[in-house]
């Protein structure tokens, strides 16, 4: 089983979710994170004093899928939906999951997904 973690721009969340659902991936977990990278934060004003916001709000999506095919489907869906072409679009990381359980049913691994 594979876990896909994607860091994307917050306003793309809705699009990415729709793309994943279209690719038949119907489970995911989302969290709010802050990203540091090439994208320079916008500057904010505070009573006339300007400062750079280094950490930029991002959204992290985590999806666990059963097969490598599903994994590349997911990666493709995210890539397309999260794309704007501007710096800061984010990254996708894939790693291995050795074991999965669905708490409600006690199903394991592929069935649990």
């Amino acid at each position, binding site marked *: 089983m594979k876990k896909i973690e994607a860091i994307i721009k917050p306003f793309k969340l809705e699009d990415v979710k729709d793309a994943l659902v279209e690719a038949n991936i119907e489970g995911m977990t989302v969290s709010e994170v802050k990203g540091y990278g090439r994208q320079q934060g916008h500057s*904010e*004003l*505070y*009573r*006339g*004093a*300007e*400062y*750079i*916001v*280094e950490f930029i709000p991002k959204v992290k999506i985590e999806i666990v899928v059963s097969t490598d095919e599903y994994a590349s489907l997911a990666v493709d869906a995210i890539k397309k939906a999260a794309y704007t072409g501007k710096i800061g679009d984010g990254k996708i990381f894939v790693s291995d999951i050795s074991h999965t359980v669905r708490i409600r049913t006690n199903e394991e691994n592929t069935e649990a997904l």
Partner: protein
Amino acid sequence: MRNIFLTVLALLALPIIASAEDVLSSGDTAWMLVATAFVMLMTPAGLALFYAGMTRSKNVLNTMGMSLIAFAVGTLVWVVAGYSIAFGDGDLIGTGKIMLVGITDKSLTGTIPELLFVAFQGTFAAIAVAIASGSMIERVKFSTFTIFAALWILVVYAPITHWAWGGGETLNFGEMDFAGGTVVHINAGVAGFVVAMILGKRKDYGKSAIKPFSPIFAVLGAALLWFGWFGFNAGSQVAADGVAGNAFLITNVAASVGVIGWLIAEYIVYKTPTLIGGASGAIAGLVAITPASGSAGVSDAIIIGLVGGVIGFIGVSKLKKIFKVDDSLDAFWIHGLVGIWGSIATAIFIAPYLMADDYDMGAQLISQIKAIVLTIVYSGVVTAIVFYIASMLTGGGRVDAETEQIGLDERVHGEKAMNL
């Protein structure tokens, strides 16, 4: 109101005339009850939110707590001794009214109960020291500030009030200060600045981003301050009459153009009209009109408030950088600097219908400047002394480095601004 009485009585030609002035007016009293409540609201609600909204999330409650304790302690020392110093008999200092001795429910100040006048003036003392707290946030000890607030009202605020309004003669230069431009704003701004210098900068100042907790609270606080300021300015007439009506209107106009002035300046310089800017502009406009609120007309108020907003912006965004003092919430720049502008403008911009026939602008300007200088020097020096005493009594005036880093809310108060 007074007039028709006098008319009726004059027509009757009765000996009662002589004491007609010393009679309680329920209308004036009604207004002053409300005006006092309005000014009260300014400290634990208006200023507390205005300041808390601009503080970092880890110190929000501490900042709010300073306004609360300033009001509580201020009210107490005011009735114990402050009122006596400020409004008791005497030249350099007032005496004879410690613990309000001799004042009863029948005592009058003009046409209102003196006990109400005590309460009204007490709210001014409290807000003055609360304004100064804005310069010290995120590093001053809560205990130090509490003791400082009590001492400062007695030793700095009450004497200055005595000279301006309380019957002091030697140090009264005939300045026009209708509602406290010098007494409250310049005084508090200078005091804050001096303490900020003594305390030193916050560790993060000029290094990492210091984000305001929430402009929502800053705007709400400013709106409540604006609301309360009607009591501050129109209440300073101590009567519900035409001058109070004039003061009310021009206060509202000056605050409005203060918002406009600050936002336009900010837009020109940074292309970003901020909410904290708009809120600060309102306060700047209000500070500027305060000393003039008994004498300016509506066109004067437009000039005074607009320039006040622009000066406030320049002070906070440009001049502040030159001075390198971490006046954290800009008490000096908004209350001190803009207060000086307002005090000078008071002598220049006067409504024809409120100007004395023999008004001498040159002489008046000199009076204004004398009072400004006296306030800056006296407040500057004595505030420093008072703060050193308060620091000594509390084992140093600044929290330790770890507390500053982790946040005063958790470490001093054991609380968090929001548990979501």
